[in-house]
């Protein structure tokens, strides 16, 4: 029900509920990050190889062990895909929220310099936003690469590294 509403359109409500501070931004980031992670995790769990389920039950896994030793590792690639989408969308929303609802941060600086027609500030602000976005994605990618080491030889993605 809530998913089709773009997180950005929550900004007015977020400001009414949480005021002008960090909290509406946190709320928006949560909205933007939650659904990609949730949807990808669900997808990852549903697409687990049924034979692995059998193999685990043959080896005497109980429900809890099954969750931690089979479901979680098998769904990790999808969870990471969700995380990467989420961090992109979270960053987008952070900047957007800072423009409107927060009185600090790169987004605020960008919007503020636009108001004062300080284009010498606009460009560096944009570059900083891009750089920080790139770095956060790079960090997730690095983490993913080291945790999903086992995927490297079978996937196209592995070839770059």
């Amino acid at each position: 029900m809530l998913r089709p509403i773009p997180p950005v359109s929550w900004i007015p409500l977020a400001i009414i509920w949480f005021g002008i501070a960090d909290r509406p931004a946190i709320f928006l980031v949560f909205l933007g990050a939650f659904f990609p992670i949730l949807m990808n995790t669900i997808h990852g769990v549903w697409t687990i190889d049924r034979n692995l389920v059998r193999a685990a039950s043959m080896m005497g896994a109980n429900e809890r062990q099954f969750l931690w030793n089979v479901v979680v590792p098998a769904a990790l690639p999808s969870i990471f895909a969700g995380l990467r989408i989420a961090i992109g969308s979270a960053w987008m929303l952070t900047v957007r929220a800072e423009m409107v609802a927060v009185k600090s941060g790169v987004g605020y600086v960008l919007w503020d310099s636009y108001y004062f027609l300080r284009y010498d500030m606009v460009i560096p602000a944009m570059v900083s936003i891009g750089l920080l976005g790139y770095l956060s994605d790079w960090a997730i990618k690095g983490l993913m690469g080291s945790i999903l080491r086992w995927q490297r030889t079978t996937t196209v993605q592995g070839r770059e590294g």
Partner: protein
Amino acid sequence: MAEIAIRNVTKAFHDRARSQDVLAVDTVNLTIADHDFVCLLGPSGCGKSTLLNMIAGFEKPSSGLIEVAGTRVERPCADRGVVFQQPTLMPWLDVADNVPFHLKLKGVGRKERRERAQSFIDLVGLTGFERHFPSELSGGMNQRVGIARALLMNPRVILMDEPFAALDAQTKMEMQEELVRIWERIRCTIVFVSHSVDEALVLGSRVAVMTRRPGRIRDDFAFDLPRPRDVTRPAFNDAKRRVLSLIRDEATTSRRAA
């Protein structure tokens, strides 16, 4: 002593879309002795895999009883290792972690796990590949890992569901020889499902030929040709001819009945 006893086992599936019952396995009786190598031979869809799944505990018989080492089979359990048609290894674990996976579930420490797995990794000829992931190994090697895993769980009873069906002819032959070598060495009981007459006769110390659905045991004979078996020997061909004629007879009768 009977290692596996199958008594009057019947399995019917309920086909919900057509609201009718389909009989997959019909009153099967089979007693498998310790250190038997039994091949269940039959055409696809004859219920041989269903029978194996019931021994494994993945499925419950509609009626009848299955006992392994004197205990009734109720659910899958680590005392019956299964080797599947696909290797079904955990893709995120390397060989040295995949083989002792059930020990991890039992809470055995990593060091002890690896130690106990090592002898079986050596047995299936994968020494030196302990740190490889399944995706880095060939199909045959992955099946070896699957066999090592089943052996480590319980070296006494191994259930195999066409484990070599997806391998190329040459690898298949090597794996069959390897399996016979392992079986002779550790004297386990093996139930091996196959649709290939050659495979059943190369491997089995006993061959149970199943009929088309509903699966019954059509014939069940001991086959004690000396090993390694030469598939071109007259004695082998005689046996093959006999089995083939059995299958052909059965195919004609079922066609006439239909």
